[in-house]
């Protein structure tokens, strides 16, 4: 055992990832012993090798085995399946887009109804805990399909614009309203003055 370990240490240069630097050995049995000595668990390497060395049974293929008319996916279906195999990054981008769209639509509905826009929101602001509904899945697939990549800076800018855009619009309408109220108050004040100074 000490001999095997010594050989192993010699084989692996310092500072180099040992992934493809197996323990060098002059005999195959040394390598067998090396791995066997380190394994544990109910199934041993010896049992596994013993089983795998047995000849493989030849099986008669069932009828129609290589039938060319066996069901195949169309090219479009294959493509769609490939796009649906999206990563977390695609999902995150899709969520950001849907969340911003949700805010825009909620704002539009609030303009129609005159009520608070939060009442019309369907999505929260965090992906964590969100249900992975069909919209999110399809959006993520579309992000993958069109290779949409958003830099962090762009994501931040989009989130700020979408977040504060409706507020900016509200601020403008508030300004008009306040100006109108002030003008109305001024007219009333002038009307009162005229009334008091009239002979």
């Amino acid at each position: 055992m000490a001999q095997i370990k010594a050989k192993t240490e010699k084989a692996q240069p310092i500072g180099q990832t040992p992934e493809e630097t197996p323990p060098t050995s002059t005999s195959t049995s040394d390598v067998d012993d090396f791995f066997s000595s380190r394994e544990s668990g109910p199934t041993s390497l010896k049992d596994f090798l013993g089983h795998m060395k047995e000849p493989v049974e030849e099986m008669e293929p069932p009828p129609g085995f290589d039938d060319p008319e066996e069901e195949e996916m169309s090219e479009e279906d294959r493509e769609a399946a490939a796009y649906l195999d999206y990563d977390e990054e695609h999902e995150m981008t899709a969520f950001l887009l849907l969340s911003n769209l949700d805010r825009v639509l909620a704002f539009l509905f609030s303009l129609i109804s005159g009520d608070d826009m939060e009442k019309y929101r369907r999505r929260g602001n965090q992906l964590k805990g969100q249900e992975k509904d069909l919209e999110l899945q399809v959006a993520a697939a579309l992000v993958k399909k069109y290779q949409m990549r958003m830099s962090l800076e762009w994501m931040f800018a989009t989130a700020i614009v979408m977040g504060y855009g409706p507020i900016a619009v509200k601020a403008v309408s508030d300004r008009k309203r306040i100006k109108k109220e002030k003008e109305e108050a001024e007219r009333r004040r002038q009307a009162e003055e005229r009334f008091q100074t009239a002979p």
Partner: protein
Amino acid sequence: MRDAQTTIVVGKNGTGKSTLILKVIKKMKRRAVVVTYDGMPKIWRNTPIIDPSKKENWQWERGIRQIRFAQHDDDTYEYILKYGRDLIVLFDDCKEYIPNNIDGKIFLKRILSQFRHRMFDLFFIAHAPDDVPKRIWIYYSHVFIFATDVLFDKRRVKIGSAGRILAAQHRVNRKFAQAKAKGNNGHYGIFEIVSP
């Protein structure tokens, strides 16, 4: 006599998984083809490369040949199915070219469903359990558990042996960490084998 088997090997870099599996397939004394993405892994650099699209390239008598997936992309699966028979098929670092959702990979699905009839002993090597598509876990007969930072996700792959795989991972990771702490490279080659 035995049925053809599907074996999964998971472990992070530097744990000895490729070295062990090379040893295993040599001991099995069957013809073998190893699929790498681009032929780069050092352990396979001396393995002769074949063009799988040519039938005559599949006629070797013994030993290991290598296929570079990047040469024919997804058509590689079709060639394995069309020309391969009675051999070991080893997918090294399979995450590089096998996606999690294999629904669109019709020929890979056929390899998985027909491996017994084709007499393929399949080996899938990956760095983590998540790198192996869900469907392959349904077919496995043995899994070699080397040390890995990513634990088996029981919610993603609902199989009866999930608990035993996780328990094996914990044991192996513990032994790996203890051996590595000693600083004498004794952490190399620590593994367990789990069957369904």
